[in-house]
């Protein structure tokens, strides 16, 4: 299944959980070969790859996360599968002190200002909500 955004059912399921609990969100990412910026974006026509565009998003998210008390734990290009198989280009982990903090992030001005890089660079992703035992 190729997805970019949560479905309404996925949002409802998330909302039913305890909003005060910490979560670690595991991003499995597939990038576009070439970034697709809108014509009015400063990066339009600059020939960035999808990965480069998503990295610009990542730099912006890093700042937002540290501002809201979340932790950018880890980000890495995926080099190869050593067991099993699949087609992910990168993995990123972000820890949130509560589901509420995660849920409110997209409404922030500083997040909305950098979100266009995600749209430009990301082909699709899985986003897995996890409860960390060891961090």
């Amino acid at each position: 299944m190729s997805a970019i955004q949560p479905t309404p059912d996925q949002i409802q399921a998330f909302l039913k959980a305890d909003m005060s609990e910490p979560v670690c969100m595991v991003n499995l990412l597939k990038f576009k070969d070439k970034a697709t910026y809108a014509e009015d974006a400063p990066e339009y026509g600059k020939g960035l790859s999808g990965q480069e565009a998503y990295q610009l998003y990542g730099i912006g998210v890093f700042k937002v996360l540290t501002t809201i008390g979340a932790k950018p734990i880890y980000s890495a290009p995926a080099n190869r599968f050593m067991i099993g198989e699949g087609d992910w280009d990168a993995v990123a982990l972000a820890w949130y002190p509560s589901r509420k903090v995660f849920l409110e992030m997209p409404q922030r001005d500083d997040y909305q200002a950098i979100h266009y890089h995600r749209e430009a660079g990301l082909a699709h992703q899985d986003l897995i909500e996890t409860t960390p035992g060891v961090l």
Partner: protein
Amino acid sequence: MPAFQPTAAQFRAFRDDEHGGTVSQVNLLKFRVKAEYKRGDPEYGEDCDGQTAYIRYSEAFTEIAAEVGGTTTLLATVERYFIGGGDWDGVLVNTFPNRAAFIATLNHEKYKSISRHRDAGLLAQDLLVTRPLWLNGNAV
């Protein structure tokens, strides 16, 4: 295709890669409903689920990995998929100063003994080899 071990080609590709820096091993895990310890394991016959058995493996693995500078970046159970869909039950990320340290952990004298917990608890997994750009808020 559900997998449990690297193929010979996958292991060689990892071992022979010339990249000498930090690697993070991202394990996407599917647990057995019930642990299946073998006759001869001290835990044989114990009533426990696959996740419990696998966590025993992961905790013991973290101890022997520490001897070569390995650390556990994340061990987490899956609540649900917020975007996309899949069937993984857990995520484990272990970080090593280099790929030789990971191989040394697999060859550790205690590994054979602790891997009984993995055999008992794990149904299938993917293992992605990644090269972290940042870890715990710091650039690598």
